[in-house]
């Protein structure tokens, strides 16, 4: 009997959460779905124009098949270009995602307080915990997932476009674009960036949601100016002789992890820089491999930076729930 009751309560929670997620999508369809789709569409359209121009140019200048010294190397490069195009789709929607997530989280717990419609949501049997978690779920998981899916579709479109262009311009071995590429690996690795991104974005998303739940007005100023001005002031302080502070560390924590971590892939920049500095990358194939490795390898989970940031993000979100519960309007 108790088990049944518990089960119903559980169902009820899931059901409510499901509707809250739908609600977020209804409100933010434009940002979550149409922004990446339209950006991708524009990118494909512009690439088509470029491809047509390129093909015309190439047909005019190409006389006979160019000499081929290193055929396997060439084929691999063509394949790597294919992989690169797939990833290009994801990086494009990733950039859009950064803006969408930033402004979505910043407004998530503020906009409905400003127009007082928060009172309507609060008049329904929906707990503040569920409300805040549904918004966090969109920012951290569902929006990035949608972004990767749309990005891969855009990537496939660019890929096919490149193949058509290669064929039309009479370049040798256009089929290498398919036979020497690794679309499933790329797609899988891009999907793997989602859980990593979730943990990585937690401190920034948590901070923005906490600000969003806390401020009475101007959430952007609070969320951005407080950490940035704080860092600037600490840096200015450093000009006083005799005071030395770990500025790099402070900027990294407050601004890079606290705000800029909403940009997908920012976790891979350090690793990639190291790789490039080592000079271990010699051809496009290795570059693609290095990017995939740095954006989604399991080894990245073994970093204190990631987990400490995630823990702080969870604390921020817990505070946001409390603020949402008691912030008193009007």
């Amino acid at each position, binding site marked *: 009997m108790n088990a049944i009751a518990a089960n119903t309560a559980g169902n009820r929670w899931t059901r409510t959460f499901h509707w809250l997620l739908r609600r977020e999508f209804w409100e933010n369809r434009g940002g979550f779905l149409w922004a990446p789709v339209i950006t991708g569409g524009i990118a494909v359209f512009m690439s088509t124009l470029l491809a047509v121009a390129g093909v015309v140019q190439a047909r005019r200048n190409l006389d006979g098949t160019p000499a081929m010294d290193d055929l396997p190397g060439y084929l691999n490069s063509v394949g790597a270009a294919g992989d690169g195009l797939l990833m290009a789709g994801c990086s494009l929607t990733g950039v859009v995602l950064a803006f969408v997530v930033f402004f979505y989280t910043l407004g998530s717990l503020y906009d409905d307080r400003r*127009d*007082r419609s928060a*009172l*309507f949501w609060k008049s329904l*049997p*929906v707990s503040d915990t569920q409300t805040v978690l549904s918004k966090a779920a969109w920012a951290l998981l569902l929006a990035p997932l949608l972004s990767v899916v749309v990005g891969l579709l855009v990537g496939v479109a660019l890929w096919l476009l490149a193949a058509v262009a290669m064929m039309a311009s009479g370049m040798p071995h256009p089929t290498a674009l398919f036979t020497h590429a690794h679309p499933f690996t790329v797609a899988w690795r891009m999907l793997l960036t989602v859980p990593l991104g979730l943990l990585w974005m937690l401190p920034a998303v948590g901070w923005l949601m906490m600000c969003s739940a806390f401020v009475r007005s101007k959430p952007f100023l609070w969320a951005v100016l407080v950490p940035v001005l704080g860092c600037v002031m600490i840096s200015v302080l450093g000009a006083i002789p005799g005071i030395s502070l770990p500025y790099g560390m402070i900027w990294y924590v407050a601004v890079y992890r606290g705000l800029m971590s909403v940009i997908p892939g920012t976790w891979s920049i350090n690793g990639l820089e190291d790789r490039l500095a080592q000079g271990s990358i010699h051809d496009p194939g290795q570059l693609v491999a290095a990017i995939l490795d740095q954006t989604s390898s399991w080894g990245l989970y073994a970093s204190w930076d990631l987990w400490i940031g995630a823990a702080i993000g969870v604390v921020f979100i817990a505070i946001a729930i409390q603020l949402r519960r008691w912030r*008193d309007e009007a």
Partner: protein
Amino acid sequence: MNATVSNHDTTPVVSARALRKAYRHRVAVAGADFDIGAGRIVGLIGPNGAGKTTALKAILGLTRFDGQLSVLGMDPRTQRDELMNQVCFIADVAVLPRWMRVREAIDFVAGVHPRFDRAKCERLLANTQLNPKLRVREMSKGMIVQLHLALVMAIDARLLVLDEPTLGLDILYRKQFYQRLLEDYFDENKTILVTTHQVEEIEHILTDVLFIRDGRIVLSAEMDHLAERYTEVLVGADRIAEARALGPVEERALPFGKTVLLYDGLPRERAAALGEVRTPGLADLFVALMKGTYA
């Protein structure tokens, strides 16, 4: 002061003892005691800044407070999530999210509220101009209130709280609002708590009133008792001195030399001897009891 809005059968729906809420610079509710029984329509009436909205917020668990407050046997501070299954409210007016479509609003409430009756909601909206695809931002204020009311009335809540529900609406919508509430919603298992400045418009639907002033309940009575207790007498100029000697709570002059005097607890026969006797309107009573509020 301990006032009780009477309740003949069970435990009260809302019960407050020494309810107090202080903001940083101002005390909004200063130790109010009241009970609201089941199956009543109670008007919480008071001047601006008397603490009406704060008291409602405390009942709805939207704000912290001191003292004791029990709503349907629960503490709104700690059991709000549970409470909201049985309590519903409309705060101020027209605050539905602007991006939402009629269909989305119905789908969402139906999805999250176990006591929502979708068929009833659709029936209530059937005769309006609200079609499912319409967005809130495209609606007039009156239409938004219609939608909100339809959503809320389709919820089988035990307590419905309305805070200035008709503010900014024209007279047609206001009349319709209360009419529908009475005809299609209210029954003996439900309790409605309403605040408004348009006292005349709700007077006929109320069963009880609570007058609040400076954060305290100054009058708490059933409407029937009110009619027995307070008497209004229309006195001619010839008998005015005699009438004044009986200690009226309030007097106001009418054109053509007549004066209206309001008495608290004056026997009917005594009053009838002075002049024409009437039952005072709630608005007149309110004005009389709130005298000096803004002084």
